[in-house]
């Protein structure tokens, strides 16, 4: 029984099957909306299907029990395989074959054999020199008429695969540590305000930090064409009301405090910004006042009560606007005051006839002018604490290293035999490699050229 399980776990069929199942499951995960995208998007599936999907945890697939089991099986498969094969690879690495083997010289093509016009003793020293320079773990054996050499290089190449597989396990370990011990959270903080509670991702409630974050200011810079150039939050981190760290938070430039990384993730404006408006009468300078939503004031001459109903950052893509209502004993009117009213009027001829509500001079003889809206922003911060990151990084580095070793190095073994041949010497070169036959050929030819230049 134990044997069956082990051979199941060490089979490459299992590996390939698992790789394919995980790939297919991941495809499902990109088609079925996942939980963190909010519950809205899968209403249309119908309640029956939703129930089935829910019980299979398909809405949070990558954290579901069965996905984790698949990953666990893959890791186990990897471990068992590696342990199974390691002794053989180790033997290949540590056992140095004897130099006087005959197998490497069987069926040697004629161009791997040279005849040199010098006797053996003159030749072997330079052969040995060349081999020691180019190869490692040289072995030599002398008999009455023959000297044998063995040399090799790139023995480490047999371990490339283990490095890859082990590093993948390290990456998985780091990811598990991160998901068990780390957290993701977000929080919105209005300018000037501070908080020490944040919302955990994936609907896990709230978390209290042991320090306080304050947003001193949020600002956006734009390019000339109106695209955003920079989002910047000036943050202060406080402990016991003392500012410990202060700094600008930009996208792609997170700030780390107390082991928690803060990211600029979002922003928005808070309703109830202030509008700066001027009320003119005829050609006078007018009076400028700042108002908030629901503020009201009186125009004494007309016995009119002016009330600010709404303040809009960008009404119907025509820019900032405020909605004003004016009540007098005789009448009651509402109209919009746009900041860019001149431009809007120029682009739509006869605007005020068509839409009297857009006329800021509707309440004669007064004329309202919106100078600007001073909005208040909130900044949206993403928080993350992930103690597994450095492990994942180390694992990734070694995956790459292992890939290079596996694919760009090879274990080359070389046997050279120098025979006495009536005062001359015959040199034969036999070579094997675990991969890269082309490189092996190039190298033996190079060696043979060197040998033939000795004679």
């Amino acid at each position, binding site marked *: 029984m134990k044997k069956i399980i082990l051979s199941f776990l060490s089979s*490459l069929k299992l590996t390939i099957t698992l790789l394919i199942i995980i790939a297919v499951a991941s495809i499902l995960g990109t088609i079925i909306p996942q939980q963190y995208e909010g519950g809205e998007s899968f209403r249309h599936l119908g309640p029956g299907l939703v129930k089935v999907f829910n019980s299979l945890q398909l809405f949070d697939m990558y954290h579901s029990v069965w996905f984790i089991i698949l990953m666990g099986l893959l890791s186990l498969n990897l471990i068992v395989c590696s342990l199974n094969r390691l002794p053989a690879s180790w033997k290949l690495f540590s056992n140095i074959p004897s130099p006087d083997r005959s197998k490497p010289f069987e069926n040697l093509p004629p161009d791997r054999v040279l005849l040199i016009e010098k006797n053996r003793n003159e030749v072997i020293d330079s052969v040995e020199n060349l081999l020691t320079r180019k190869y490692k773990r040289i072995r030599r054996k002398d008999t009455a008429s023959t000297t044998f050499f063995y040399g090799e290089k790139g023995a480490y190449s047999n371990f490339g695969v283990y490095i890859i597989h082990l590093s993948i396990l390290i990456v998985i370990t780091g990811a598990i540590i991160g998901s068990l011990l780390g957290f993701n959270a977000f929080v919105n903080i209005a300018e000037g305000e501070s908080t020490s509670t944040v919302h955990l991702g994936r609907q896990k409630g709230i978390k209290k930090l042991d320090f306080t974050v304050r947003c001193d200011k949020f600002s956006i810079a734009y390019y000339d064409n109106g695209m955003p150039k920079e989002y910047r939050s000036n943050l202060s981190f406080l402990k016991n009301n003392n500012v410990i760290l202060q700094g600008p938070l930009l996208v792609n430039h997170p700030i780390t405090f107390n082991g928690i990384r803060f990211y600029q993730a979002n922003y928005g404006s808070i309703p109830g910004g202030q509008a700066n408006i001027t009320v003119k009468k005829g050609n006078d300078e007018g009076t400028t006042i700042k108002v908030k939503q629901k503020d009201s004031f009186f125009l004494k001459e007309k016995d009119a009560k002016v009330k600010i109903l709404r303040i809009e950052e960008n009404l119907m893509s025509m820019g900032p606007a405020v909605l004003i209502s004016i009540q007098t004993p005789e009448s009651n009117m509402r109209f919009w005051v746009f900041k860019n009213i001149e431009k809007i009027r120029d682009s739509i001829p006869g605007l005020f006839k068509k839409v009297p509500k857009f006329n800021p001079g509707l309440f004669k003889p007064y004329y309202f002018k919106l100078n600007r809206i001073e909005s208040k922003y909130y900044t949206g911060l993403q928080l993350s604490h992930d103690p597994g990151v450095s492990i994942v990084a180390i694992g990734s580095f070694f995956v790459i290293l292992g890939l290079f070793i596996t694919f760009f190095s090879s274990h080359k073994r070389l046997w050279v035999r120098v025979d006495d041949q009536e005062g001359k010497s015959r040199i034969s070169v036999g070579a094997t490699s675990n991969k890269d036959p082309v490189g092996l050929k190039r190298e033996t030819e190079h060696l043979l050229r060197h040998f033939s230049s000795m004679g």
Partner: protein
Amino acid sequence: MIINTTILSWVTFIYFGSAIFYIFKMVTGKEFWGSLASIIAFIGLIAHTFGLILRWFESYKMGIGHAPLSNLYESLIFFSWTIVLLYLIIEWRIKSRNLGAFVVPFAFFSMAFASFSPNVNARIQPLIPALQSNWLISHVITCFFGYAALTIACGLGFMYLLKGLEKGERPRLFFRFLPGREIVDELTYHSVVIGFIFLTLGIITGSVWAYSAWGSYWSWDPKETWSLITWLIYAAMLHSRFVRGWRGKRMAIMSIIGFASVLFTYFGVNYLPGLHSYF
């Protein structure tokens, strides 16, 4: 139109010409067409490189300087550039021009899509905050070299399958001009290895970028997930070769399936529900 886009749309036609001549070469077996195709492709590559550099300069002149790797247009142009560059290197190394007919058309399609699709905006745009990262540049470069190598593997896969259509003892038509199956198989394997290494590097650099921009090196959003799927497909392909010794037709088919997954990672993902609705 700015000069660089004019040059780049001319490059599209140059690659078209080159692809046609490579096909002539394949069908007639005449080396003349092959040489012509190579020369034209090389001229195209030089103009292409010049166009990319010019675009870089122009962005600096506009005061929003950045490497031309930041939107769909620029990535398509760069994709095509990596395909032709890698292809010409391979052609020079293996001293055979048969593969051109299967690869250069991809470079042409990518250019044509970039230059003439109404959905692709060719203007030089400034970088939004999320894209202002050096990791992004290394991410794009590694990914597209990987995609280019996998494109070549796919071309080789088609070549292998086409070769498989020939029947009988003495191959007729142009089949006899195609290189032997073992060579094609070996080349496919090497291209997949190169592609796989770059793909791995691309995923890792992408994660580093995500870690500095979004607060998580991996968040299972569709693009990330599809890059993993692609990676798994090629990993399965390589393992079936190492350990099970699969060769030939199966490898050819898998290189085509893998490439379909690459294309989906690149384009198709935009049609799936996304997690990152970012600024």
